[in-house]
Every structure is written in structure tokens, then in C-alpha cells.
């Protein structure tokens, strides 16, 4: 059913937990559907300095959250932002078809976390002319 990569990330999730001093938090899914993903980001020098996740959901949901954190950690925001749910699934060697929609929301949560970060941070001073 699941690839080895999925099982590895499910069983040994990377970067799980809360991030106390997160610059942005994003959430996707809802408990009615059985999947909620929360992504915490810490941004330094326009890079994903730290990232973590919390997930309520099936094995695929946990694995996609976990691998997403690995995929974007250390990248520039601009680069990291390009990540899609499809890319996450591919990084895991694929997901069962019925899991592609409901459980593959980590990139959505991540994008929301970046959005929250932008909302939160003090507007940069206008550059001197």
C-alpha cells in the first residue's frame, strides 16, 4: 500500500512537535475529514531556519508532513515556496490514489505558515532612494 519512504517517515517522523518561537503557523484540513496538519516555521535571513509539524491523520498525512519539513528546511523562502503537494507525494515515491487528495495537504499548511509569517513581520523600511 505505502512505499518504504512513507513508512519510514511515518514511523520516524522528522521535525515533529511545536516550535515555541515560530514566525508563522499554518494549518490545513479539518477533523471531520480525519486530517489536520499544522506547520510551524522559523525564518532567518529569508531562509527556513527551522520548521516543525503536528499532524492528526493517517499514515500518509504524517509522512507527507514529515518529508515536507525535510524538503524545505534550509531553503530560501522563495525557493521553498515553490513546493507543491504533488512534489511532496513524489518525494515519498508516490501515494495510493485515494490518499492524493485528502491526506496530502502538507504543502498547503506550509504555504499558509509562510503567509502568516508575512502578515506577522514588521513591514521592511522602504529602501532609501
Amino acid at each position, binding site marked *: 500500500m*505505502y512505499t518504504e519512504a512513507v*513508512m519510514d517517515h*511515518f*514511523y520516524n*517522523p522528522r521535525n*515533529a*512537535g*511545536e516550535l515555541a518561537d515560530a514566525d508563522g503557523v499554518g*494549518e490545513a484540513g479539518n*477533523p*471531520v*475529514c*480525519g*486530517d*489536520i*496538519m*499544522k506547520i510551524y516555521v522559523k525564518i532567518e535571513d529569508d531562509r527556513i531556519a527551522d520548521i516543525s*509539524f*503536528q*499532524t*492528526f*491523520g*493517517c*499514515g*500518509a*498525512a*504524517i509522512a507527507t508532513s514529515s518529508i515536507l519539513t525535510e524538503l524545505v528546511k534550509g531553503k530560501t523562502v522563495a525557493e521553498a515556496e515553490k513546493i507543491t503537494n504533488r512534489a511532496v507525494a513524489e518525494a515519498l515515491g508516490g501515494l*495510493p490514489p*485515494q*490518499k492524493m487528495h*485528502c*491526506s496530502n495537504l502538507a504543502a498547503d499548511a506550509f504555504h499558509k505558515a509562510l503567509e502568516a509569517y508575512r502578515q506577522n513581520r514588521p513591514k521592511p523600511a522602504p529602501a532609501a532612494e
Partner: protein
Amino acid sequence: MERIYLDHAATTPVDPRVVEAMLPYFTANFGNPSSIYQEGRAAKKAIEESREKVAEILGAADTREIIFTGSGSEADNLAITGVAWAYRKKGNHIITSAIEHPAVLETCKELEKHGFAVTYLPVDEYGLVAPEAVRDAITDRTILVSLMHANNEVGTIQPIAEISKIVRAKGVLLHTDAVQTAGSIPLQADELGVDLLSLSAHKFYGPKGVGVLYAKKGTRLHRLIHGGAQEGRLRAGTENVAGIVGLAKALELAAAGLEETVPRLAELRDYFINKIFSRIDHVKLNGHPTRRLPGNINVSFEFVEGESILLNLDLEGIAASSGSACTSGALEPSHVLLAMGLPHETAHGSVRFTIGKDNTKEQLDYVLGVLEETIARLRAISPLYREQRGRKEK
């Protein structure tokens, strides 16, 4: 690592004695029961002896009341569609419940497309249908009430004998899906007072792909699979002789063991439930506290999702099942749990353990340890649990 199988409601291994009984009918006694020569007569005899066994165990009055089918689902389909079309002139109304197996529910939905009206009775928080609700639902167009004997997910046993009195007083036929009870608890069609009863061999250590519909003498049935004159013209197709022999043998072994297994499994079940509650917080028992199948444990672990629990258990060598949508590829979690009033998120976190005759207390103790760790691990990464922790701690 030795695997611990706790999903006996899904299916069971075939008892070696059953395999033994089946084997000759693949090779040495392979005849077609419709053939008149020696090989055919031997096959016919095997089927008829199996029919007698099954009839006797189920308390049937006549061997012709036993119809062998290709599965429990087919038996359910035959019972409901068969009565629907045979009694179409008398009426077009069928009553069932919201927690039936899909083999019943989907058959009813199909009949709705053909002009039948179906009432889906609600259940209470324990999964029980109220006999009065059955009485109130019956109209003069009602031809059939189909209510399962015990639910496959939560193990709740319906008061079929009580419901039978109401249904029969109104001259309506009663079908019960006894797929979960056959071989698990004593089961007598006459005592239950049902006109039709379905069962499936693979739920009681028999082979997959063979079931029985008991249809009381005088119950008219329209067949589902048309063709040859097999099974009293009620189910066409060359008989699965080995499967039928296996079903009868398995039912015989199960019936003989009931006196011993029922109390033993119930004790293991209660032990397991109590231990879960004492070791894990935020747990809910689904189903009825006492009117439940001896081997059934169905619990919801809040803040975690069922499939992830199952995956984790599987990695530790344990097989169990869940009402989570994710385990079935469905969009919604278990229709049974939702009908019992569980919120979606709690339904998603349900896990079903069903104990079988070969499980031991030692196995359950091992499972409890793994389960405790699993729930803790998954809650640790759950955004829902964190939020709750402050509010209510054990």
C-alpha cells in the same frame, strides 16, 4: 516476530480440520453434483450431508431451508432482493437499520431505484434498534424487515427475538444478517423467530467464498443468479462442493466449541477493555457495554486517527481494524459509528480488536503495551491533543 491477529471479525484462518475435510473434493471426489454417475452422486451426497449438518445446527425444520451461496454478501442480496421481487404484489416497503453491513444497505439502495421504499431505522448510542421503532415503521405495504443479528464493527447484538414477535404479529417477513454471530454465539433460526438468515463461512474458520441463506419453508424467494436448477432452483451455478463441505465442517466445529469459547472470549474482551481504560486516557468504548459479541472490542482514542494507529500496530506485529475513512478508502468514517452519534473526529480514531479462539492473554498484554506507546507517540505529534492537554488531564 510472531504476528498477533486481532481482526477475526474481518476474516479467520481456515481450521486445519476444515482444510482436511475439503481436500478430497478437489481431487478424488471432484464430480459435478448434477451428474448421475458415481462421481456426481458422491459430490451430491457431500452437499446434502453438509446441508443436513447446517440445517440441524441452525435449527432448521427442513434441509431445503438451507441455500448455499457464494458469500455472505450474496446471501444478504438474495434474501432482500429475493423477497422484494417475490412479494412485489403484496407491497413495496422494506425496513432496515442505519448500521447494517453494506451488503444489506446497498441492496436496499438498489431496490429504491426499482420502486421500493426503504426505511432506515436509527440506532441509539449503543447501536441498538428500538423494537417500538420497528413496530411504528411497519405499514400495510411492508413486506420485509432486515436487521442484523450483531454488528460487525461494534459487536452490538440486536434483540431479534423480541423484534420478531412484533414483525410476525404484523405478518411481515424478518431477515437477519447473522454473518457475525454464526459460529460466535448460539444461533437458532427458530428461537430467533426469523424467516431468513445469512451467514458466511470465512467468519468462523471456514473458507472464503461460501455462505448460506436460511429461508424458512413457505418463504417465497426470487433467485438472484439465474441458470441451472441447483439449490432448489434458488441459486444457479455448479456448486462449490469443497467450499460447502468446508462451511459445514467449520460450523460444526464452531457450534461444538461455543460453550467453551463464548465465556473465555468474553473474559478476554473485558480484561482488554478494562486494561485499555486503566492505561490510556481519553478513550471511549463504542457499542454496548454488555450486549456485545464475546470477541469484540471497539474503542475510540481521541486526538489520533485510526489508520495511523493500525499502521503502527502492524509494524509491531499486530493486526486490527478501524472505522476510520482512511482504512477503507472512503470519504466518510464508519457509517455505524456516525449513526451511533459519534462526532467525525472520534469516529476517525476508532480501533476494533476482535479476539479469536487462538488468542491468549499474553498476546493481549503485549498488545496493550504496544497500544499505550502508539497512542502516546501519535498524540505527541497531534495538534488536537496539545490543545486539549491543559483542559483535562488524568
